[in-house]
């Protein structure tokens, strides 16, 4: 019975997140347009795009292999599976011990499937885009994982039920530590996470794999019609999920407890409030970042990860460790 509810919940979540993430894309385009003193497309433009793409003919290149058609389906399937392990204002549906590993694994898998699909298309642009995506992929995960595990380890030390699970964030949160040192460390890690988020959704500095003026949308160069629509949707869901992780770590508070709700209604209110927080995080990490920066070269982006963000993550982690172990206290 419990499994049935969880499955129904996942389907409901999938429909809701598809809607919310496409809506955010519309809001983002409108906001950035306003920052650039343009009118911008209608708010529902991503929905129109999606529906139109679904109804269009999908052209498959002559040299593409079978995986070319399979990749978009797999990408969407993985992103739906990812939703089951995503904190959405409450603990993930299939929460279990150590589910954070599954979360990161699935998140990386989406990028990996994009790369496979791109290579299968046989286009030189897609291959260059795929190369770039792989380089970014291996660079961006390191600082993020270091930061994530430091926080989980720190929370583990103040006592939680299931260590190293995403549900941890809703029991204790990192700001509760309260010491000045911990606040500084947490703040540094927040910056690392925001930069990671920007690179995960490939905007601003990190719009490198899909750089339209250089490699003509990179991995997506050959995709069209339904296949492109599936990729667009899985990308939108991935964007929402990545932002959800940042929200769960740093801003996990719900409002249902304050206004005294419980049961299903509480869940709905929490999801809506969570969505608002996701939009706020995306506004900083996506819209503003996109409006005020341009794209870097691939070597410069790798340098940003290894020479800026990785040391920042180490420093943040060390500060949190010092805070716990009381070396200087």
């Amino acid at each position, binding site marked *: 019975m419990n499994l049935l509810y969880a499955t129904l919940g996942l389907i409901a979540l999938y429909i809701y997140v598809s809607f919310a993430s496409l809506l955010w894309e519309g809001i983002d385009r409108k906001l950035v347009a306003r*920052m*650039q*003193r*343009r009118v911008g497309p209608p708010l529902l433009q991503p929905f129109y795009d999606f529906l139109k793409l679904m109804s269009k003919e999908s052209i498959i290149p002559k040299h593409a292999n079978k995986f070319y058609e399979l990749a978009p389906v797999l990408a969407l399937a993985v992103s739906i599976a990812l939703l089951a392990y995503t904190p959405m204002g409450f603990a993930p549906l299939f929460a279990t011990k150590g589910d954070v590993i599954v979360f990161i694994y699935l998140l990386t898998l989406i990028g990996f499937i994009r790369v496979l699909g791109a290579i299968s298309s046989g286009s*030189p*642009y897609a*291959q*260059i885009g795929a*190369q770039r995506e792989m380089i970014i992929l291996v660079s961006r995960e390191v600082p993020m994982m270091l930061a994530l595990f430091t926080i989980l380890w720190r929370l583990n030390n103040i006592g939680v039920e299931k260590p190293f699970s995403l549900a941890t964030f809703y029991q204790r949160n990192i700001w509760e530590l309260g010491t000045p040192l911990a606040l500084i460390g947490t703040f540094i890690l927040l910056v690392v996470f925001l930069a990671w988020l920007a690179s995960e959704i490939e905007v*601003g*500095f990190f*719009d*490198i794999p899909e*750089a*339209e*003026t*250089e*490699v*003509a949308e990179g991995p997506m160069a050959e995709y069209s019609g339904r296949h492109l629509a599936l990729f667009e949707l899985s990308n939108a869901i991935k964007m929402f999920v990545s932002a959800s992780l940042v929200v769960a770590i740093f801003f996990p508070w719900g409002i249902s407890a304050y206004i005294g709700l419980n049961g299903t209604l509480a869940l709905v209110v929490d999801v809506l409030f969570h969505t608002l927080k996701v939009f706020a995080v995306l506004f900083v990490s996506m819209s503003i970042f996109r*409006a*005020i*920066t*341009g*794209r*870097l*070269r*691939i*070597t*410069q982006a790798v340098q940003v990860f290894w020479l800026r963000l990785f040391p920042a993550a180490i420093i943040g982690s060390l500060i949190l460790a010092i805070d716990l172990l009381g070396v200087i206290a």
Partner: protein
Amino acid sequence: MNGKIEYWVKIPIGPIHPALEEPEKFIITLDGERIINVDVKLGYNLRGLEWIAMRRNWIQVLYLAERICGICSFSHNHTYARAVEEMAGIEVPERAEYIRVIIGELERIHSHLLNLGVVAHTIGYDTVLHLSWLARERVMDILEDIGGNRVNYAGNMIGGVRRDIKDRHKKAILDMIQYYRQEVMPKVEEIFLYDPTVEARLRDSGVIPKRIAIEYSAQGPTARGSGIKKDVRYNEKLGVYPDLGVKPVTPKEFTGVIKGDVFDRMVVRVGEIWNSMEIIERALDQMPEGKIKAFPKDNLILVKLKKAEGEGIGRYEAPRGELIHYVRAEKGKDGPAKWKMREPTFPNLFAVARALVGEQLADVPVAIASIDPCLSCTDRVAVIDANTGKRKILTEVDLLKESIKKTKEINPNIKARPERIGIGRCML
């Protein structure tokens, strides 16, 4: 060739590519992200202007020259008019020379603002694109006010200019300069001289060293960005420019160093906008009263030119660099016996293709955009499709027929017969 060749990837940039505004083709050989070789193929925009010009008279060629390119439309007919004047020994009234300077510099401002936006777009910095093109609207409005058109302002005539600059225009231009000085240029400088993203992307990319720039005859801001102090307005002592204090702008005056990269070319453009505004102010100040054309009526020009014989060269510093027109007249002929032009993009394109070897793929679009390529200028020479080739070339008529056929296949119920618009309607 060594064993490494199997790892090399050849990728075509163009003929249609998001980074290019106009069709051209760069075949780039890559080893990973590093460029091994760049090959340029032109001719996707051939309209056969020289061939068409053989069938036009002197005045008609003036309008043809204007339509070589939309951005530097004034430069082309200005240079053509100068070549014809030199050939026939026509003296231009001084006021007309000043008006040519003013319109030419206004055009330089709008062309450089356009290019600043395009370069920002190629590095993914779209906010700068939108804001700099918004600022460009002001000078476009002025040009429309003077010439009647945003793009082809048709200012020139052989032996003078067609339209006078009145007090109303003078006031509008001074207002515009005020606006640019106080609101636009500080922001432009902030972005292109000091912004870290722009500096990270444009510094050390697409470097054209001074030696290569001289060897490959780079022109205009591309050459000046490499530290070559060359400006046709200055070297040629063109028109009344020497009285207005024109000087080649090099990045040394702004940043103190010359590296010859994309950043330096953009610095030159920013400097030239400042310089152009000063020149316009001085020109408005010093402009004498008087007539604006040497011939009151156009047919007098034709009569005079029909008797003329000889050859003339006109040179002018277009926004992108040195522009040359050559004309040769034969006695008793209505039009030029030979008209030939060379645009700055032509040498710049080969200079930048040479400079790209050894750079990263990510630098290709920005390096190409930084010379401000004007390919409709460059591809201008011959005409005509070949019947004997293997491919079948479709004309508009054929395309329209095919399109109607396809529509009827999809929906046989459509009864309407589409008509082609324009003059000379005909049956399909």
